[in-house]
């Protein structure tokens, strides 16, 4: 199966030669997502929970475009401007992942793109079904 570029239209266009996500074989790489709308406007200024909710909505949309669900995620990386936001991210992630428990690393960074973003998250997902395409009957 050729590499698929995952760019759900409702997420807006990413500046630069990048995709919101890429599926290659059974692996899906989701670009770092921040809490903004399709036009790049921050949703939930200074509200870590609101931003995190948008982030995981966006991540969910990219996963869906690649045929994956939250339970296919194997790795989560969180980039936070301040450690005070961690509790809010746990709350949102618990709702997003349910009982699923991917590997995870969170760390503090000196800034996040775009301006006004308090955090960003990237994920890697791995689909269980084989990548081989079915031949038509």
């Amino acid at each position: 199966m050729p590499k698929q570029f995952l760019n759900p239209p409702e997420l807006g266009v990413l500046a630069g030669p990048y995709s919101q996500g890429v599926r290659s074989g059974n692996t899906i790489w989701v670009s770092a997502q921040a809490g903004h709308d399709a036009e790049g406007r921050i949703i939930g200024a200074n509200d870590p929970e609101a931003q995190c909710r948008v982030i995981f909505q966006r991540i969910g949309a990219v996963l869906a475009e690649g045929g994956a669900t939250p339970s296919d995620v194997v790795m989560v990386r969180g980039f936070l401007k301040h450690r005070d936001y961690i509790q809010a991210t746990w709350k949102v992630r618990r709702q997003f992942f349910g009982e699923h428990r991917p590997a995870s690393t969170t760390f503090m960074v000196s800034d996040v793109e775009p301006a006004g973003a308090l955090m960003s998250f990237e994920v890697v997902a791995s689909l269980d079904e084989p990548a081989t395409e079915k031949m038509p009957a």
Partner: protein
Amino acid sequence: MIVAARGQMAKQFYNPPDVFSPVSIYSHGVRSGRTVTLAGQAPLHDDGTVVGPGDPAAQCRRVFADLRKTLDLAGATFENVVYVRAYLTQKAVLPVLRRVAGEIFGSNRPAFTPVIVPSVRAEGALVEIELVVELDP
């Protein structure tokens, strides 16, 4: 070709002789299956000094030039890249990186995560980039 048990190819390690390594404890690229993971590449001269101090465009170009040498050893090109993670010491480097990356990736649209950090390992470096590559079947 080195063949391991169960018909799997053993891991391959790629270290271009003309790409500077600060210490011989890691490889610039490792292939496992069809996936090649590249180490964070800083903009360094052969003697380890930083390329273009204060010049983000020169630094980004050098980083991609050195990444290309590792890709070459793996039989890959920038078209095979599925993931780009860029560590930047200033947000202002991001538009410069976007422009240089636009010249590098051709029609490819990899996933992308910028991580803005207080500093990177190489003193004076404004950018360090790591890649994940999926080789063609």
